[in-house]
């Protein structure tokens, strides 16, 4: 096609028209829109999508690191101390922390993921789950049992790509 002034304008019209034709073509001919009918059809989020933060309660020691690092202070932790039986025979009973409360206010959370990153005990995880909207803002404060339910949706650990920064596991499993 030879050049003429205003060629770009027609090119633009061609793009939009072509897109319309493509959207209207049936799926079998490689057409159809790029979107899906959301409530009826759902797209699978990518495995490492930042949907919601899940809590693995057994690993949490109530060290408060996540709560203190949180930029908008949306993690509320309460715990009490108790004495656990000694590891060895005749030893001193160990002092441990038990979680009473671990709430994340998702109306404040900005999904920065700093809490997941700073957790030294592998207690917080990203889950790709995204359907947890509520009809009132106060109901977005989720407690530890709800956060624990999301652990099931956390995908299994995937091998990092070659050259990626390796996460060092801090607790022996």
């Amino acid at each position, binding site marked *: 096609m030879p050049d003429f002034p205003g060629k770009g304008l027609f090119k633009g*019209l061609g793009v*939009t028209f072509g*897109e*319309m034709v493509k*959207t209207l073509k049936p799926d079998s001919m490689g057409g159809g829109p*790029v*979107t899906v*009918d959301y409530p009826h059809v759902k797209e699978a989020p990518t495995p490492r999508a930042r949907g919601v933060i899940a809590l693995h309660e057994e690993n949490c020691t109530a060290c408060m690191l996540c709560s203190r690092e949180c930029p908008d202070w949306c993690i509320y932790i309460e715990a009490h101390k108790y004495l656990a039986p000694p590891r060895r025979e005749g030893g001193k009973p160990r002092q441990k922390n038990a979680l009473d409360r671990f709430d994340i206010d998702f109306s404040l959370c900005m999904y920065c993921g700093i809490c997941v990153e700073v957790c030294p005990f592998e207690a917080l995880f990203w889950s790709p789950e995204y359907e947890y909207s509520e009809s009132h803002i106060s109901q977005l404060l989720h407690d530890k049992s709800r956060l624990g339910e999301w652990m099931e949706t956390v995908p299994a650990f995937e091998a990092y790509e070659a050259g990626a920064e390796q996460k060092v596991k801090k607790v022996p499993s």
Partner: protein
Amino acid sequence: MTHVLASLDPAYWQSTAIKLLVAAILVPTTALILGIVFLFKVMSWMQSRKGPQEAGPRGLLQLLADGAKFVQKEDLIPDRADRFVFKAAPLVVLMSTLLLYAILPASQHLVIADLDVGIFFALAVSSLSVIGVLMAGWGSANKYSLMGGLRAGGQLIAYELPMVLAVVGVVIQAGTLNMNGIVEAQANGSIFGFSALGNPFILTQFVGFFIFLAAVQAELTQPPFDMPVAESELVGGYQVEYSGFRFLTFFLAEFATAFAFAGIAATLFLGGWWVPFINTNSDSYWLIGPIALFTKIMIVSFIIFWVRFTYPRFREDQLQAFAWKWLIPISLVNILITAVLKVAF
């Protein structure tokens, strides 16, 4: 059929009441059709999505639902607004739209007012909307509104000229200002002696057609000429302070005006209600006239909205330069050439 209708011979007040009723039904309906078909559906397709799906079959009732929502909203009037001017502005804009429908012929007799100065009247009343827009901008007591209103004023006046000048070419060729006369001229015209297809003026006045469409786009303050309502810099221009039903009125007026202008373009350049091979005096035009006109309007509207969905916004100085440095000189040259050829042949 003509005899039957002629024997009815309604009194003046009766025919006026019927015409008012028809216009009152027609204007919102056409605005709805354009809104649903183009703003919701065609725009979605051009952006590779399906558009509204939930309200009604295939989401076709979405705009009605939106309209019902607007009616429920609180009618806000700013504290320092000029209340009378503020309230009157949307009605002035809507009035200009309603008057445009008066001269649009759907067939030889299906026309609200068959004026001798038809197209001249249309161009005159279409510029009334500038006053409404300026009233809205000034009456809102809001600087964004005022900026938007002034931009709209400058733009609408600038693009009125190329629109009028583009029409002059058609008028010279048709030899009449009457809308039905222009349709007849196209139906009875011939291309180099070949008269079966008539002579739709888009063939001889294609320059005028493009200038007219560009000017219509600007008159509607649609993208790419939407500087007056540019939401990224002026929030919503002269519509900022309007809510609920008053905003709905502006919305309605915009789309009804788009339909009316598409109708005028279809009449001037595509032959209006006339269909090739059917004599313009045929009785069948009572039925096929409106259908033919509607089809042609949808084609022209598609072009208008296609451009709307494709191009980004003009800068204010580019917008003015485009009207004064390009459209007006080109349309003047177009008039000159048309006049010379008219005299020569």
